[in-house]
C-alpha cells in the first residue's frame, strides 16, 4: 500500500496536464468539428435557437451536392492543384541550383548574392503586389494561370533553406563525383538531391501549403471565375449565399480543407520535422 501513494503522486500532475490539454485541444479543434457537423445538418437545425450538437436528420448528401453543384468547386480544386504543382516544380528548378552554388561553389558576387537573398526574405509578397500586377499587365497575362504561377517561381525562402542544408552535405561526396568526371549540373541532380530529400520535402510542404491557401494575390489578379483557386471559390460561394445556406457553405469549406488535412495526417512526422529543422537552422 505504501507503493500506491508515491505512484498516485507521480501521476497526479500528469493527469492534470492531460485534462488541461484536452480542454484546450477541444477549443482549438472546435471550429473543425463544428464545420463538419454543420455540413451534415439541414437548415432548420442550423437556424434554430438551441444548440444542436449532432444532426437529428442527416442532410449530408444534400449539402455536399449543393456545395459541388452551386459552384464549380471541383474545378477550383483542380486549379489549385495545377497552380501549386507548377509553382513547386518551377521553384525547384530555380532554387536548387542557386542554393547549391551558394553553398558549395565559390564565384565572384557570391556574398553579394547571399545578402540579396537575406534582404529579399524580409520582403512580403504583398509589398510587391502592385508592381507585379503592372508587370503582368504589360506582358498581357493578367487573369490567367501564368499570373498565378510566375511571380512565385522565385522562392528566397527555399534558396535559404536549401543552402543551409546543402552546406551540411560532406564535400568529399561532391569531390568524389567531380573526380568521376561529373559536371556540376549532374552533381546537383545525382548527388546533392538524393541526399537532401528531407529538406526538399520540408520545402515542398511549405510551398504547397502557402500557395494552396493563397488569397491576396489571386484576389487581385483574377477576374474570370474559371481560374479561381479554392480560396477564392469558397469566398465567392459565401458571398453568393449571403448568409442563407450554411449547410452547403460548411460542406464547401470542408471540401477545401480536406486535402491538406488528410495529407497532413498521413505524413505528420515529415511535416513537423520539416518545420522543426527549418526553425532550428
Amino acid at each position, binding site marked *: 500500500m505504501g507503493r500506491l501513494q508515491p505512484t498516485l503522486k507521480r501521476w497526479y500532475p500528469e493527469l492534470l496536464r492531460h485534462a488541461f490539454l484536452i480542454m484546450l485541444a477541444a477549443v*482549438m479543434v*472546435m471550429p473543425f468539428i463544428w464545420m463538419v457537423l454543420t455540413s451534415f445538418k439541414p437548415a432548420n437545425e442550423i437556424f434554430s435557437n438551441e*444548440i444542436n450538437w449532432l444532426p437529428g436528420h442527416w442532410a449530408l448528401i444534400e449539402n455536399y451536392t449543393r456545395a459541388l453543384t452551386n459552384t464549380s468547386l471541383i474545378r477550383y480544386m483542380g486549379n489549385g492543384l495545377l497552380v501549386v504543382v507548377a509553382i513547386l516544380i518551377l521553384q525547384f528548378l530555380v532554387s536548387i541550383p542557386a542554393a547549391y552554388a551558394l553553398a558549395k*561553389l565559390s564565384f565572384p558576387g557570391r556574398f553579394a548574392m547571399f545578402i540579396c537573398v537575406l534582404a529579399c526574405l524580409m*520582403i512580403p509578397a504583398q509589398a510587391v503586389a502592385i508592381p507585379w500586377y503592372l508587370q503582368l499587365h504589360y506582358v498581357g497575362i493578367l487573369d490567367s494561370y501564368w499570373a498565378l504561377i510566375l511571380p512565385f517561381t522565385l522562392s*528566397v525562402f527555399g534558396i535559404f533553406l536549401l543552402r543551409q542544408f546543402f552546406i551540411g552535405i560532406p564535400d568529399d561526396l561532391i569531390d568524389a563525383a567531380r573526380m568521376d568526371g561529373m559536371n556540376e549540373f549532374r552533381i546537383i541532380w545525382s548527388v546533392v538531391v538524393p541526399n537532401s530529400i528531407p529538406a526538399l520535402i520540408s520545402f515542398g510542404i511549405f510551398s504547397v501549403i502557402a500557395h494552396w491557401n493563397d488569397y491576396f494575390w489571386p484576389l487581385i489578379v483574377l477576374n474570370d471565375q474559371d481560374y479561381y483557386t479554392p480560396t477564392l471559390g469558397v469566398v465567392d460561394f459565401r458571398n453568393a449565399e449571403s448568409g442563407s445556406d450554411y449547410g452547403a457553405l460548411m460542406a464547401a469549406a470542408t471540401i477545401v480543407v480536406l486535402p491538406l488535412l488528410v495529407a*497532413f495526417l498521413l505524413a505528420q512526422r515529415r511535416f513537423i520535422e520539416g518545420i522543426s529543422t527549418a526553425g532550428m537552422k
Partner: protein
Amino acid sequence: MNFHRRISIARYRYGEQLWGIGLSAPAFILMILLMLGPIALTMLLSLTDWQLGMGNFSWIGLKNYESAVNDPIFWKSLFNTSVYVAVVMTGSIGLGLLLALMINQLSFGKGFYRTLFFLPVMASLVAMTIVWEFLLHPEFGLINQLLTALGGTPNNWLRDEDWALAALCVIGIWHQAGFNMVLFIAGLTAIPKFLYEAADIDGVPPGFSRFRHITWPLLGPVTLFIVVMTAIKAFQVFDTVQILTQGGPSYSSEVLLLTIYKEGFEYFRTGYAAALTVVFLTLVILVTVVKSLFLEKKVKYT
C-alpha cells in the same frame, strides 16, 4: 607546385566560377525582376499621383506621404495593426510555449496533442475564416449560443466596434499558436537532459526557477526565430480582415495591408497605395531588424 598543376587548378577555379554564376543566374535575375526591381518601382510610383487605368500622371514628390500623415484612416490602420501584432504575438507565443512545456513533459500522447494543436496552422485559413464567421454569427453562431446557455449576453462580435479587432486577434492566435508550439517542442527536445540532472544535484528546485535558469536561456535561438516569424506573419494579416469585417465597423479593424489593397485595387489610387506600401515595408524590416538585434544580444548574454 609545377606550372601545369597551377594551370589546371586555375582552370578548375575558373570553371567553378562559371558554374557558380551560371547556376545562380536564374535565381539572381528573378530576384531583380520580382523582388528588388519591384521595390524600386513601388518607391517610384509612390512619388506620383497615378491611378490605375488612367492615361497620364504627374510627379508629386512626397505629397502622397504627406496625405498619409494627414489621413486619420492611415493612423487608425497603423494603430490597429500594431495592436493586432502585439496581441497575436503575445498570445500565440505564450500559448505555444505553454503547450510545448506541457506536452514535452507527458509520458504518452505527445504526438496526438501535437497533431491536434497543429491542425489550425495547416488548414486553409480562408476556409476556416468562413467557419469562424459562422461561429460568430449573432443569432445562430455556436459562440453566442453557448454564451446564452451559460447565462451571458450574446453579441454581434464582428459588427461591434469594440470587439471586431479582438475577434480577429483570437482567430490570429488560434491560427499561429500551433506553429510556435511545434518549434518550441523542437527547441525543448534539443536541450540535453544532463543539464536538468545537474540542476537536481545542485539543488535547483523544479518548476519556475528551473525554467528560468536552464530552459528559457537555451530556448533563445528558437525563440528568436519564432518571435521574428510571428511578427512578420502578424504584420501581414489580411485574409481574415478582408473576409470578415472589411476593416469595419468604422475602421475599427482596419489594418495596413487592407488599406493598401483598398487604395490600390478598389479605389485605384495606385500612387498613394505605393506610398503606403513603402511605409509598410519599412515597418516590417525595421521590426525584424530591431527584434533580431535585441534578442540576439539577450541570447548572447545568457
